[in-house]
């Protein structure tokens, strides 16, 4: 090969490599920005909040939801006037303060439904977040109180240790592990609980 051809091919290779390198970099940048998108504290918090383990007990209607397919709770179980069931049975008739390995019935302290005003079923994450931070709809809680609720309440944290079902199969956990969720809540609320547009 002549010297000029060699230089051109080297240059070409260099440019190709550069382009490839740049594109890799761009990809990496895109990945990074995507990762950044998926991993904001708000993203993490809402990834948990919108998971079925939480939404099942924040139903829109008159009955709890259950299972991986969020079907209506069997046996015509109803919300009742105080979100604790009816006169003949309450949530506590079957659910105790801990998961039960014999029966596969889940349990946590003060097991029961969130009131209808705190329903999450069928709502977008932005709608839920707005509702959650609004004292008129969240039981009059301040952001600090919401933070405490989300990071310390045993019923909330049950989602990360949901036990086995009646088939002996472990229930699906939210996509973010517990400690990461707790940190994300503190980050998000600590930085003003900013809620994006979508």
């Amino acid at each position, binding site marked *: 090969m002549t010297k000029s051809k060699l230089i051109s091919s080297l240059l070409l290779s260099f440019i190709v490599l550069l382009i490839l390198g740049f594109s890799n970099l761009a990809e990496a940048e895109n990945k990074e920005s995507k990762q950044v998108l998926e991993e904001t504290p708000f993203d993490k918090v809402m990834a948990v909040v919108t998971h079925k383990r939480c939404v099942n007990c924040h139903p829109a209607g008159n009955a709890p939801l259950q299972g991986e397919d969020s079907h209506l709770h*069997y046996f015509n179980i109803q919300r009742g006037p105080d979100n604790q069931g009816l006169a003949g049975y309450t949530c506590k008739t079957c659910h105790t303060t801990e998961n039960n390995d*014999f029966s596969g019935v889940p349990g946590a302290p003060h097991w029961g439904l969130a009131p209808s005003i705190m329903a999450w079923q069928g709502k977008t994450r932005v709608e839920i977040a707005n509702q959650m931070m609004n004292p008129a709809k969240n039981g009059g809680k301040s952001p600090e109180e919401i933070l405490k609720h989300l990071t310390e309440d045993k019923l909330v944290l049950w989602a990360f240790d949901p036990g086995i079902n009646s088939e002996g199969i472990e229930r699906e956990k939210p996509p973010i592990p517990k400690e990461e969720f707790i940190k994300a809540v503190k980050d998000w609320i600590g930085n003003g609980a900013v809620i994006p547009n979508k």
Partner: protein
Amino acid sequence: MSETKKKGLSRRKFIKYTGIGVGLILGGCLALNPLRRKLFESLETKLSPYSGDTSPLIWLQVSPENQIILHSSKVEMGQGTFTGLAQLAAEELEIDFDQITVVHAATDTGNIDPFATGGSISVAVLYIPLREMAATIREMLKIRAAEMLAVNASELTIQADCHISGGGKTISFGEIVEGVTEWDIPETPALKDAATFKYIGKPMKRVDLEDKVFGVPIFGMDAAYPDMLYGSVVRSRLVDAKMSNFDVSEAEKMPGVVKIVQENGFVGVVAKSHAQAEMARRKIKFDYTPNQKWNLAEINKAITVGNGKKTVFQKNGKAVADIGAAGEIVKMEFRTPIGAHAQIEPNGAVANYKDGKVELKISTQVVDLTRSEVAKALGIKAEDVNIIPTFLGGGFGRRLHTPNAIQAAIMSRAVGKPIKSFFTRKQEFQNDTFRPPTHHIMQAKIAPSGDILGLEHATASGDTLFNSPLAPSVVAAILRADIGSIRGGSINYDGIPDHRATYYHVDLPFATSFWRSLGLLANTFAIESFMDELALKTNQNPIEMRLKYIKDENPYRVRLKKVIEVCAEKSAYSDTVSAGRAMGFAASIDVGSPCAHVVEVSIVNNQIKIHKVTVAFDCGIAVNPDQVKAQVEGCVCMGISAVLFEKMDLKDNKLYPTIYGPYKMAMMKDTPKEIDVHLIQGVDKPLPVGEPPLGPIGAAIGNAVRRLTGKRLTELPLSLG
């Protein structure tokens, strides 16, 4: 031995196989289809006589408290048999009804039913024999009392509290029988006339009512022995799969475990408590080798008319396709799903093996069969196995085979202690002997005038009777059609000139067997839905149309007509929709007892809601009319559950659901506000009660829905989507 006794023996020997009885003896000589069809017809209408021992002394005992103990070879599973038997005995013994205590006869007493408790026949087949035994005992007591009191037997009076008076003196039954070791058994006395009945035909309160209201431990699951241990047995979670390579190393180390027993083809944990046995069993690992992949689609493909061994079990005239006269052919298909028994008390047994003998307390419908199977499995004599049956927490045909007794007995022998071992609810659902799925094709030819010229019912189904240990394998060879699956499958409308019914028998990879009323529910659903559709098509009132096609010559059919008429009248049947409600009618005959339903239905939130069911039922003499009504109510509720909600599914060889809830069943909220039962006495003897009232419910509801929505639902469970 007296003449009377000799007669008794020869009567018993002649009828060897009870459940099939007379029919099978005939069947043994038959090979031809027409004769076979005659046999099916006779089996539908004739009851096989009771073939167990009818010696009064093994049935009726005078207790130390001077009351009567009735040792029943038939078991009590809620169907009210114990109460009916007590009424029969009290009537002829001339004592107060509450002087009789009914207990399950342990096999050691010698009172063993060679057949089973099932088929709705217990009270019907014991109606005469038990009354004869009670009357005989009464006479025996009088004869001896006459000797003791030195008066003529004709001067004696029975007192209602188990005493006999005469010549100014009174002695108790207890005193009469004391010390007597040999009895002369007299000629069977005449039985009481129906006009004088004190107990038969009266709504006596159930003899087991108090025990059941106050939680007395009477069930198989309640039985116990001192020093008892608990067993939990591994059962397959897959169909058509072999289990192998059992690894019990982790299970052995679990708390409370005494021994892991691997014998006779099963693996069981023995532990100090039920909870410990259960938790240890969950740790047993093993492999599955499926023989073949099975999903519901393959089952439905197999259960299809045209597939399987074919038998034409009813044939009158031509096939619809061969009718020459002008007309339109109408055709419809129906399907019903796999049904679970779901009885609330799981199967299990309590066994006490000691010194080469074993005693078992068990909820079972087949006492004799269980004894033989346990004896064979343990390599001991049947006489060394004592079965003490317990009250059943539901039977419904589920306990017509209870080989789980073998596991409890073997575990007891292995550890030298009594064992209580029960299945989990999941094991019950996945190892049930299900109601088989069915497929039906109905066909009719309608003349331009609207006349039905021909009607055909073809059905494909899995086993009910075949492969049951109750039926000798010769039955399948002789009969060809599973007489359980074809129950209710014949066409009752003999006014239709050409009519026939065909059965296709299919082998399935999982056990199917007796489920209350066997093929009746599914067959009636198909036939009666189709008849209703034909009524709509030809613009006829569906009830008038049925009556038109039932001829009066057959007394059996006359009773069906009567039941239909009474039901129509009492329900004020109307063919039109009114205030959002419609009525649906259906009728069936099962094992000689015709039954008709009219249901009143509305649609609420796209759900079928049943407000009222009117039932007309002819079971002959209702020995206890209140309990007959209870059986009808129970059939209606269980029928609603099956036709509106229940079905099993199959995926990757796994049967599911495996728990109540996902296996949807009727609850209080699904129960009609009114169940109005009218009993008709069409013959002067009691006939089967427990199963026949199930027949019409599916079609009746489907027919009401048809009028309300215009939709003809052809699959169970019924759903509007």
